[in-house]
């Protein structure tokens, strides 16, 4: 008894810091992680408080102020920090509103995809046998059709509104989760704590809920984070094909696409959304990579 308690005391002093504190400490150690988190928080705040930040309506054309260059360029005015677009709308204001849509699309479609992928991955690996066979053939099929193809075809059926886009991206990108989660669960299921639960008589559902899902969560979070970045880029690519968010909704991809015909003549229209995408994606990837290091279960 006494020997054990002394052992215990030591443990106590050793890893006293709670999860949150540890998390912050680890964050402080990683510069890229900090940068990533900072970017993501800023972008999120911008998205939330868009209404308060924007100086102009992002959608209302202003025919008298068409294609005004950014304020520091010749011909620019301080009224339009980043210039105006071909309908005389303030690029800065649009950029800020675009944050909202881009983030929503990025995050929600990842939620949809993640949910489907997680369930299918876990179920497939845990139950194995024919369940696995069937689900994996479906995954194979989906995997062999690049998701952008899928999305292109689906979007010819439904015109790409925000909701449609979220669902469609979600429905076509879940395979990645399913595949990775399945792999993870396959090895997890051989771990002794799962067997321990089985020897106790715990039900499948509880085992999945308590033993499997929490343990794939870190992987899940990491893929999800990185997927948000991919989705933002995907939305931009879809915009290029005319299948992204449609006006009057504003997304960075849409702006970038509107600006692409103006790249040679009015660079600011397309460049700023491009930069916004790049910075955000950069931030998310930094954060994701850092999470990958931190959430590694071996920690």
């Amino acid at each position: 008894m006494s020997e054990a308690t002394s052992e215990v005391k030591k443990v106590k002093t050793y890893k006293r810091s709670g999860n949150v504190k540890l998390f912050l400490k680890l964050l402080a150690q990683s510069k890229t992680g900090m940068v990533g988190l900072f970017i993501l928080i800023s972008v999120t705040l911008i998205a939330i408080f868009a209404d308060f930040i924007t100086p102009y309506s992002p959608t209302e054309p202003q025919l008298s102020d068409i294609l005004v260059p950014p304020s520091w360029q010749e011909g620019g005015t301080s009224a339009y920090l980043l210039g105006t677009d071909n309908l005389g709308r303030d690029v800065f204001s649009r950029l800020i509103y675009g944050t909202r849509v881009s983030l929503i699309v990025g995050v929600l479609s990842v939620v949809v995809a993640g949910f489907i992928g997680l369930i299918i991955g876990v179920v497939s690996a845990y139950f194995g046998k024919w369940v696995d066979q069937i689900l994996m053939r479906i995954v194979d099929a989906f995997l062999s059709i690049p998701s952008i193809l899928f999305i292109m075809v689906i979007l010819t059926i439904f015109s790409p509104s925000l909701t449609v886009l979220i669902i469609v991206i979600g429905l076509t990108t879940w395979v990645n989760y399913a595949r990775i989660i399945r792999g993870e669960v396959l090895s997890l299921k051989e771990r002794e704590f799962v067997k321990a639960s089985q020897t106790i008589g715990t039900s499948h559902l509880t085992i999945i809920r308590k033993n499997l899902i929490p343990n794939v969560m870190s992987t899940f979070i990491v893929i999800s984070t990185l997927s948000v970045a991919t989705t933002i880029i995907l939305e931009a690519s879809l915009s290029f094909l005319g299948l992204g968010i449609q006006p009057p909704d504003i997304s960075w991809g849409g702006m970038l696409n509107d600006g692409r015909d103006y790249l040679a003549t009015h660079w600011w229209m397309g460049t700023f959304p491009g930069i916004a995408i790049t910075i955000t994606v950069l931030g998310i990837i930094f954060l994701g990579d850092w999470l990958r290091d931190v959430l590694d279960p071996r920690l």
Partner: protein
Amino acid sequence: MNLLEVKDLHTNFYTDHGVIPALTGVSFSVKKGEVLGIVGESGCGKSVTSLSILQLLGNKGKINSGNIHFKGQDLTTFSTKKMRKVRGNEISMIFQEPLTSLNPLIRVGKQIEETVLLHKKELSKIEAHNHAINMMKMVGIPQAEEKYAYYPHQLSGGMRQRIMIAIALACDPELLIADEPTTALDVTIQEQILGLMKKITRELDTSIILITHDLGVVAEMVDRVVVMYSGQVVEENEVGKFFANPKHPYSKGLIRSTPSIDQEDNLESIKGSVPTPANKPSGCPFHPRCPFAMEICKSQAPENMYYGEEEMVNCWLYKEEVKTS
């Protein structure tokens, strides 16, 4: 003269989570033809010691102070290039996990041959090939010519470990460091591998540092024992004397908690567990677990106390005793 002399070795790891002092003053020596055993529990620095000698600590590990004299020369002053000539040639190493220690994509024979070609420049390719096959025969691999072309996964654990030994001995090293060479193996295979090591090194007059946490292996194999605890050497003695009369409370605890076939009475255990380097206790690192701990142990680390030619203990209990002897 001692073949190898390690003096007050300090090795740190510089990780993302801070500096880890893995070795805090390790000293011992190995004589020509001798088998030296290093025992200690997991995490006490046995592997780091051996890797320090070969300077294979990776880019995070660094020897901070201390010397390693090998045949009179200080290895810590060697350039990378010079050190490469020592590795696998004069000092070679066998690792614990024979499966992961062999490159899975290269034929085992080739892996032996590579060492030969590296260090025995005078040999032609064919000679090196033959030498590799001879080595395989020497470590008791039947049909060596055929097995030459096997990949590691095609061999059993014991066979793989034999290949490791063949690699290690291919260039007649003067010192062989075996880091838990049999921990992953079954007893019967362990018996053979240990027997093989004993036989070959006796023939070649190779000195061995045998790292293990199995006191049985120590008792079977070594001439002298070095006990490590938490990054330092706490006791050193000739093997017979060590088992007959262990000095350090940790050594005593180890021996008494090791079950053996001849065991009659109950096992005694050491309370608590090995501290990690990051949270090493003050004073004598063993004091929280020590049944004889005194006040001084908590605050002040004992020095190495020599009470014979090569008999050392690092414990306050023996301060008086050593002085009087």
